C-alpha cells in the first residue's frame, strides 16, 4: 500500500467518525468536536492530494498547502464563534440542549 492510499484511507476514517459524531452526539460541544474531526479528514485528503504535483517534477504541489492553511484558519474561526455561542447559551439557559421546547397551543 502506498503512502498516498494510507493517507486517503485515514481521511475516509476521519470523515466517517466526524459524520457519525455529528449525527449521533446530542451535546453541541461534541458535535463541534465531530465537525473538527471531519474537517481534519478533509485536510488530510487535501494534503495527500498535493503529492500529485510530484509528477511535474516538484517535491509536491504547493497550491493545496496554501489553500489548506486558509481552510484551517476558517475552521478555527468557526470553532471559536460556535464555542462563544455555546457559552452564552449555557449562561442564559443553564443547559446546552439544542432541542426546541415543545410547541405550545
Amino acid at each position, binding site marked *: 500500500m502506498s503512502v498516498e492510499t494510507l493517507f486517503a484511507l485515514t481521511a475516509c476514517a476521519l*470523515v466517517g467518525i*466526524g*459524520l457519525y459524531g*455529528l*449525527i*449521533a452526539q*446530542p451535546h*453541541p460541544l461534541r*458535535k*463541534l468536536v465531530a*465537525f473538527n474531526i*471531519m*474537517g481534519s479528514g*478533509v485536510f488530510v*485528503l*487535501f494534503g495527500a*492530494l498535493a503529492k*500529485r504535483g510530484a509528477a511535474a517534477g516538484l517535491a509536491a*504541489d504547493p*497550491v*493545496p498547502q496554501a*489553500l489548506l492553511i*486558509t*481552510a484551517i484558519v*476558517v475552521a478555527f*474561526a*468557526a470553532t471559536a*464563534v*460556535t464555542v462563544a*455561542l*455555546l457559552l*452564552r*447559551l449555557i449562561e*442564559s*439557559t443553564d443547559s446546552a*440542549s*439544542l*432541542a*426546541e*421546547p415543545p*410547541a405550545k*397551543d
Partner: protein
Amino acid sequence: MWAIDLWMSTDGGALLAAAVLLPFVGMLLGLLLGGRWLQRVAFVLMPLGLALALAITAAWANTEGPLVYLLGGWSPPLGIALRADGAAVAMLLAVAGVVCGIGLFARADFGLGPDAPESRGAFAYWLLLLAVWGALNLVFVSGDLFTLYVALELLTFAGVPLVCLAGSGETLRAALRYMLFALCGSVLYLLGAVLLYGGYGTLDMPLLAGVVQPEPIAFAALALMTAGLLAKTALFPLHIWLPPAHGGAPAAASAVLSALVIKGSWFLVLRLWLDVMPGVASAQAAQLLAGLGAAAIVVGSVVALRQQRLKLLVAYSTVAQIGYLFLLFPMAFDAAGDMVLRDLAASAGVLQAIAHATAKAGMFMAAGLVYAALGHDRIDDLAGAARALPVAVAAFLVGGLALMGVVPSGAYLAKKLLLASADASGQWWWTWVLQGGAAFTAGYVVLVALRVFARPVTPLTELKPVSRLSQWAALGLAVASLLLSLAAVVGPLPAELLAKAFSLEELGTMLVLFGAGALLAAALARRPLLGKPSSAVRPGLGGLGTAFEAGDRLVRQWPSAMLALLLVAGTCGWLLARA
C-alpha cells in the same frame, strides 16, 4: 458563457474589487471609530455601494462578456480572478438596493444617534449588516471555488450572530443550531472542492468548466457540494434551522437573513450546475432538486397557513419560496436531457431570487412593525391592524401579492419564463407545481388580509408609535418587487415578454389562483377564515394540517435532518452517475 478572453482584466474590472472591499472597509472604520460613528459610516456607505453597483452595471453593459479583474495581475490557475456576468451584476445591484432599504428601516430600531444609549446589539447589527453585504458581493464575483468557500463562511459567520442579537436563550439556541448545521454544509462543500482539485488540478471556474468530465470524481464532488449548499440554503428537508432563526431574530435582522443570506449559497448552486459543470449535471438529478423544491412549497405553505404568529408565517413562507428557487433546474434541460435552455432558466432564477429578496424583506419589516405597534403578532388577534397601521399592512400585502406573481411583479415574469421552458421541454408536471405554489402563496396572503381587515371586537387603543421612515422603507421594497418585471424588460430581458401581461387570460389565471388560494386557506387554516376568532383550533382538512405540522417537526429534529443531508447527497450522486 466564458467564450471571451478571460485572462485579462477588463475596463471597470477594478470596480468588482471595490464592491467587495467597500463594506469591509466600512466595518473596520466603524470598529475603529466606535459606535456613534458606525451608523454614520454605514449611511455614507449605503448610497456609495449602490452607486458602485450602478457603475458596475454600466461597465458590464459596455463590455462584451463578463467583467474580469485579476488580483495583483496574476492570472489563474495560480492567481485569483474576480468575474461578474449578467447574473452576478443583477444580484450585486439588487443586494445593494435591498441593503439600503433595510438600513433605512433599521435606523429606528438600531439607531446609534447622540441621544440613544450605545447598545451592543445596535453596534453589532450595523457591523454584521456590512459584513453580510461584503460577503455576498464576494460570493457573486468570486471566480474560483475556494474563494467562494471563504466567502460562504464569511456569510455564515455574519448571518449567525444576527439571529441572536436579542440575546435570549431561545434565539441563542436557534443561532447555535444554524451554525452547527451550516458547518456540516461547509465541510461537505469543501470536501467536494478538494475532490475537484484532486481530479482536475484547478478550482478556477472557467478552467474547471473546460476540463471537467462526467466521471465518478465529478459526480461525487457535485453531489457533495450541492448537498452542503442546500443545507446552508435550508431547502426542505434541510430547513432544520430556518424557522426558529428567521422567526426569532429582530425584524431588521430577519429581513437580512431571509432576503439576502440564503441567496448566497443558492447562487452558488446555480453557478455549479449551469456554468461550472453543465456537462456533469443531469436532467434526472435536476428533477431531484426541483422535487425537493416542490416538497418545500407544499410543506412550507401548509405549515405557514397553520402558524399563530405573523413572523413565523413569513419564515415558513421563506421555506416555501426557497423551494420555488430550485424549480429552475430541470427547466434548463430539454426533453432529451441536454442543457439547452440554460439562459432561460438562469434568468428566471435570478429574477425570482431578486423578487423574493425585495418582497420578503418588506414583509419581514412589516411583520416587525406590526409587532412593535401592537405588542404582539398573533395572527388571530390582528383585527383592526389595517386601519391602525395602513402603510405597514400595505407593505405586507403588496409583498405577498408580488410573491404570488401578480402582474407586473418579478415573480410573475420568472414564473412565465419557467412555464415557457416547461412547455418547450415537455415537463408538464412542473406547470402544476409552479401554479400550485402561486395558489398557496395567495392562500396565506388572503388569510392575513382577512385578519387585518376584520373589525376589532374592542377598538385598538394602546398602540405604540412606530417610525414612519421604517414603514415607508418596507412599502418601498415591496413595491419594488411588484414592479420588478418592468425594470427587467427595460434592462436585459426582451420586452415582448410583458406583451400579454395585462390580457384577460392573465387576469383569469390570477383570479383562479386567488380562488384556489382562498379555498386552501379556508381548508387548512387553524381557525375558520370568517367568523368568531375565538373558535377552537381545527386540524385542517381531515387532520392534514396537523399531519404536516407533525411531519415538519419530525424532519427538523437534528438526527433526521443530518440523515436527510446524507440521503440528499447520496441520491444526488446516484442520479448524476446514472445519466
